[in-house]
């Protein structure tokens, strides 16, 4: 399977500041790929290099099989982009902007345009300056999603949307996935990435720190266990692979490495388990770990 986006060792400096410091990103054709990282991690800079707006200072970048800087115009016919901070022309209506961007990309799917306007509950007759942040975002989303393109590049597309609209956005992306479109979804909204993405790359300070399917990433990490027991749980302290043990009377809360679960269960059972809650790490926790103690991750 060929890759829609292939980046290795990408570098970009702004003055003395290294915005990207050897970033890698592989997005397979047809997948919805989550591009996760906190503000300032380098997501937007990466996207701007992919769009040929910024020139890379090092590393390899291939977009839809081409060079994003040299072949920008040809490649842009095949993709649509929604910026994180959508700024519209104050005097143009939302409907005009959607049509304009669609035409500049080479055509709009009329029925999808109408359908999306309906689903996003967007009034296309309002002028750009009167839209709220969320509505400006919807304008850019409708324009991108109703374009006939292979690749969607979305930079925090739901940052201004309410939960209802977010759900509409997710179902629209699901439809795109079924059509075989490739989607690069930059986000720090974890639930969104969890719900939509086939694979995830996590970036931090301009580098990729983790990449894989959610399943693969979870495998590397710990499961949270919360239990109430009858006996004194102090013995759990000596177990290998148990972290962050908190005991309050008979209540235990801990994290356990994925491959040490069996031993934990063996040790818990004799204590007389009254209740047991266990959940796989949410992306939230994955994320927190990468950013909070990322320097000395075990």
């Amino acid at each position, binding site marked *: 399977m060929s890759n829609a986006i292939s980046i290795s060792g990408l570098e970009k400096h*702004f*003055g003395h500041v290294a915005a990207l410091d050897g970033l890698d990103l592989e997005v397979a054709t047809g997948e919805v790929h989550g591009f996760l990282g906190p503000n300032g991690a380098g997501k937007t800079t990466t996207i*701007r290099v992919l*769009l040929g*707006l*910024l*020139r890379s200072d090092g590393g390899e970048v291939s977009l839809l099989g081409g060079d994003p800087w040299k072949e*920008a*115009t*040809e490649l*842009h*016919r095949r*993709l*649509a*982009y929604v*910026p994180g*901070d*959508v*700024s*519209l*022309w*104050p*005097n*143009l*209506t939302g*409907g*005009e*902007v*959607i*049509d*304009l*961007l669609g*035409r*500049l*990309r*080479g055509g709009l799917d009329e029925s999808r345009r109408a359908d999306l306007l309906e689903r996003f509950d967007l*009034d*296309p*007759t*309002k*002028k750009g*300056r*009167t839209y709220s942040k969320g509505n400006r975002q919807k304008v*850019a989303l409708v324009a991108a999603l109703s374009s006939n393109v292979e690749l969607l590049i979305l930079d925090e597309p739901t940052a201004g949307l309410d939960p209802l609209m977010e759900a509409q956005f997710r179902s629209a992306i699901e439809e795109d996935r079924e059509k075989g479109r490739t989607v690069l979804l930059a986000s720090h909204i974890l639930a969104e990435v969890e719900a939509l993405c086939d694979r995830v790359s996590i970036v931090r300070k301009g580098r990729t720190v983790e990449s894989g399917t959610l399943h693969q990433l979870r495998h590397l990490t710990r499961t949270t266990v919360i239990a109430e027991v009858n006996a004194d749980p102090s013995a759990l302290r000596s177990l290998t692979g148990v972290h962050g043990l908190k005991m309050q009377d008979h209540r235990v809360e801990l994290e356990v490495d994925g491959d040490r679960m069996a031993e934990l269960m063996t040790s818990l059972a004799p204590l007389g388990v009254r209740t047991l809650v266990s959940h796989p790490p949410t992306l939230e926790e994955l994320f927190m770990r990468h950013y909070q103690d990322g320097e000395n991750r075990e």
Partner: protein
Amino acid sequence: MKSLSGIGALIRLFLRLDRVRLPVWALVLGAVPVGTASAFQGLYTTEASRLELAATVTSNPAFTALLGPLYDPSIGGLTAWRIGTLGSFIVGLMAVLTMIRHTRDDEETGRRELMGSTVVGRHAPLAAALTITVATGVIIGVIITVGLAGLGLPIEGSIAFGAGFTAVTISFAAVGAFAAQLTQAGSTARGMGVGIVGLFFVLRMAGDVSDGLGWLSWLSPIGWFSRLRPFAGERWWVFALWIGFSVALTTITLVVQSRRDVGEGALPPRPGPARAAAGLGTTSGLAWRLQRGSLVGWTAGLGVLGIIYGAAGDSIGEMLADNPQLAEIFEQMGGTQTITDTFFAAAVGIIAIVASAYSIRSVLKLKTEEDSLRSELVLATATPRPRYAWSHLLYGLAGPVVILAVAGALAGATYGAIVGDVAGETPRVLVSAMSQVPAVWVLTGATIALYGAFPRLASLSWGVLAFCLILGQLGQILQFPQWSLNLSPFTHVPMIPAEEFVAAPFAILLALAAGLVIAGIAGFRARDTPYS
């Protein structure tokens, strides 16, 4: 007063934001009158030489049209005449632009909302903007008063000159505040505000050049400056006009502001079309949509100026009819025709400077679009960068041609209609206007070159224009060395129709402009966008 709470913090914020801009305005506007007076002192040392200069300028209505009447041939009187009216116009622009930048622009972008959620009273941003604008006017006034008095000019006149500029600043701060209330868009408010400054300038011009309509000058805060008569028997009561005007307009503004919502204009927005028209599907269609309003506005404004110049051209003839001795002098100098030709060449030179301002503004639209990240939306589509840059650059190049053609043709036709030779005069002034185009294009080229290669410095193109304006307006009378005059492209344009057409300077200016444009496009192609 609760409605003013937070004003201190806002004033500090605005001063921080304008820490370069306002000092530059204040220094330039304060230093130019003092420098001019100092240069006059060195150049016109004898009473006789000053009287001779006064005789030349009072006999040419072009000077009166542009600069207002000369009341006294002393150093102070000459300085007040040379700088006062045009300076008041520029001080007015400064005040209007500063006010709108800190009121309506902030509301439009939502920054006002951010401030409003903190402890900031309803009128605080307006009051803070007024405070810093007026303070700038006071500083300009102090620099002028101290500078002129320091040169040994009479103290009363120095105070009147300085305080006059302060009063003009205050009046136009009120104009800016008022314009900011009316519309949602900062750009529209700016257009209105600048339009009002221009209207007051034209009002006084019409009043100054025609005998019967002299009262028109009394309707203009710019006209009041020459009526104040610094160094020519100061009429201190003129300050009451400025104060009354400012107080009345500010009161109206406060009433309007109390009645409207933050972010809203007094004129309500209307819904627009749900679908884009067929023309709005290309980069050039978008540029037309974004540029057409200002092109029409500037063309109309300068068209009116052309008509006024055309009408003023005829008053030369009248003046000569009234004064047989003067007519004889002009006959010896080459006849009435030469005098009118010189007048129109000078008038067209002024129009060309304003057309250059339009050109710079429309090229810098590229920077506005890039700064607001709207350019990113377009450049992420199948739009090559050169095509995108050209879509706006087109207005920078073709716009001045349209403006100069309309203004030149209207000036010629108006003058022709008065003297009974429309078919003859129209093409004469039109050709004169068109001859300025290559010089304007050099400034257009400088702007795109700066934007393409050094986008952070693109606003310096306004400095280049100011430089050309100062050289063109003051260079000859202050006897600047020729090499410095040669730095302005306008110096190299022959004074058609007074002078013969020569091809060489045009070819050089066109080549220079083309080189700058090519460099600018190449720079834009090669650099990061948004620039860092």
